[in-house]
């Protein structure tokens, strides 16, 4: 288990991670979500003892990272697929890592096989595509067969086949009882991979819990079609709902259930041709949760158009 206690990292006058307290449990895939620049990578680096917290602490099964006897056998991490010397072959890169932690050479070939890089093991890592680099990074994380695994944006640069492989692979690792902590800025990706999620924005904890709770807690909307859409819209507005007209016959009512909308229509003797509850997608929930904490956002105009 990874425990963060009041973890804070301040650079000059920027607070990258702000008083973060969470436990990351074994046996599940924990998604670590936040917009770009929200402090995910800084948190990952502090877990690995690379960056020193300004205050607070990180422990791995109760120990500091630097006190782990053979760190690679307890914690495997992919922090940055490019965090290796491009001139070294994949195999030599892994051999040097294995040598530090007294991991047998045989294991190097095993992990190369697991991630599907055996054929290019002797090629310079600098000639690898981003996706192959990610696979090599994952191989490095698996080297010591650790119980705790950290992956920072592992699907970046992977092709669809690779993404699917990673997803199933992470779930497999978690089902073996390992702690799997995966960061991403893509909610949709986490929806398919993670059991638990930790959402941060501007370094602060926004939400923590089961991913299913997150979707259920989201307030949905209802789409109605009616020949008397105008009258229905007026009635709904009067009842205090947020109504947007999609076209002449169709309305979207925010923050309402289909029962509420149906009742209003009935009370006003309005015929309905369609009544569809819309569940907010995880992406919507994520956008809503982090809306106030996006570090680098485009102008409102372009985001509207993108929708």
């Amino acid at each position, binding site marked *: 288990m990874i425990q963060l206690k009041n973890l804070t990292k301040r650079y000059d006058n920027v607070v990258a991670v702000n008083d973060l307290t969470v436990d990351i449990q074994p046996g599940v895939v924990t998604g670590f979500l936040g917009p770009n620049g929200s402090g995910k990578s800084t948190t990952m680096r502090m877990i*690995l003892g690379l960056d020193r917290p300004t205050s607070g602490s990180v422990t791995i099964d109760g120990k500091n990272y630097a006190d782990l006897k053979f760190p690679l056998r307890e914690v495997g*991490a992919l922090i940055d697929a*490019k*965090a290796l*010397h491009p*001139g070294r072959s994949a195999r030599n890169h892994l051999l040097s*890592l294995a*040598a*530090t932690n007294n991991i047998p050479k045989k294991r190097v070939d095993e992990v190369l096989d697991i991630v599907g890089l055996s054929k290019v093991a002797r090629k310079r890592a600098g000639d690898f595509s981003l996706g192959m680099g990610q696979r090599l990074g994952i191989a490095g994380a698996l080297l010591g067969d650790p119980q705790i695994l950290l992956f920072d944006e592992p699907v970046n640069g992977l092709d669809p086949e690779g993404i699917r492989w990673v997803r199933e692979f992470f779930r497999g690792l978690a089902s073996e009882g390992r702690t799997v902590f995966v960061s991403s800025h893509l909610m949709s990706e986490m929806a398919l991979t993670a059991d638990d999620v930790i959402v941060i924005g501007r370094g602060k904890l926004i939400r923590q819990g089961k991913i299913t709770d997150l979707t259920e807690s989201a307030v949905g909307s209802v789409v109605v079609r009616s020949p008397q859409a105008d009258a229905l819209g007026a009635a709904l507005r009067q009842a205090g709902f947020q109504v947007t007209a999609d076209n002449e016959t169709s309305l979207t009512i925010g923050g309402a259930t289909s029962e509420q909308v149906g009742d209003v229509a009935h009370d006003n003797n309005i015929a309905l041709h369609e009544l569809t509850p819309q569940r907010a997608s995880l992406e919507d929930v994520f956008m809503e949760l982090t809306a106030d904490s996006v570090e680098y956002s485009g102008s409102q105009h372009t985001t509207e158009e993108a929708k």
Partner: protein
Amino acid sequence: MSSSISLASSTKAEWIKFRSLRSSIYSLITLIGLTVGLGALITFAIAKHYADRGGDLTYDPIASSLAGLFFAQFVVGVMGAMLMTGEYATTSIRTSLAAFPRRTEFIISKVVVLVVTLLIVGEAMVFVSYFIGHMIEASYNVPTASLSNGATWRAVSFGGVELVLLSLLGFGLGLLLRRTAAAIAVFVVVLLVAPILLNILPSSWGEPILRWMPSNLSQGMMSLTRDAHTFGPWNCLIILALYAIGLVSLGIVFFNRRDA
């Protein structure tokens, strides 16, 4: 099986990292080429000039056989610096420290690889250079220095040690500055530019400082004749070694404090 990462394991890992880079091999080839090749060429030119002119010039057989070391010192400086700055430039420092978080020992492992490699290659080079120079000198009938003479033996063998100490200065600069360009620039300024500037100054100002400069100390280590303004060979070695140890130690202090 040991209970935690040993210095031997991490040194082995650093050795794998060093030998698996083509640039390490090219650096060593350049180093040997400059020391042995240029040393032979310079000895040939000077010995021929001396033979043509007759005995009115002074001839230092060691200075000409080992003349290539002047160029070699920049190669070892760059090698030392890049052993550290390469980790930062590629951000592989993070992967390295995640595998071995005890930072002082991580640096010691790198130092061991650098020192042992350059001591073996360096000593082999200087003795080969000496013998080639000796053969050229003998064929031109110019003065030669014999290894049976203790001073000659010391001057030649200190050649390899000089390279090791200068590579450690480069390494220390790389550790402190973290950028290849910055580390090499400072190295060249200290070794090449500063002595020239000090020579321009009136000698009463320049000379007391000059004898403390790494360039003069490294020359002094191999000198057969004692100049009144320089330290003796052993003192030169000790002072240069203290610089190297001091700089690397300072680097380690910063390295332990900084984020990787």
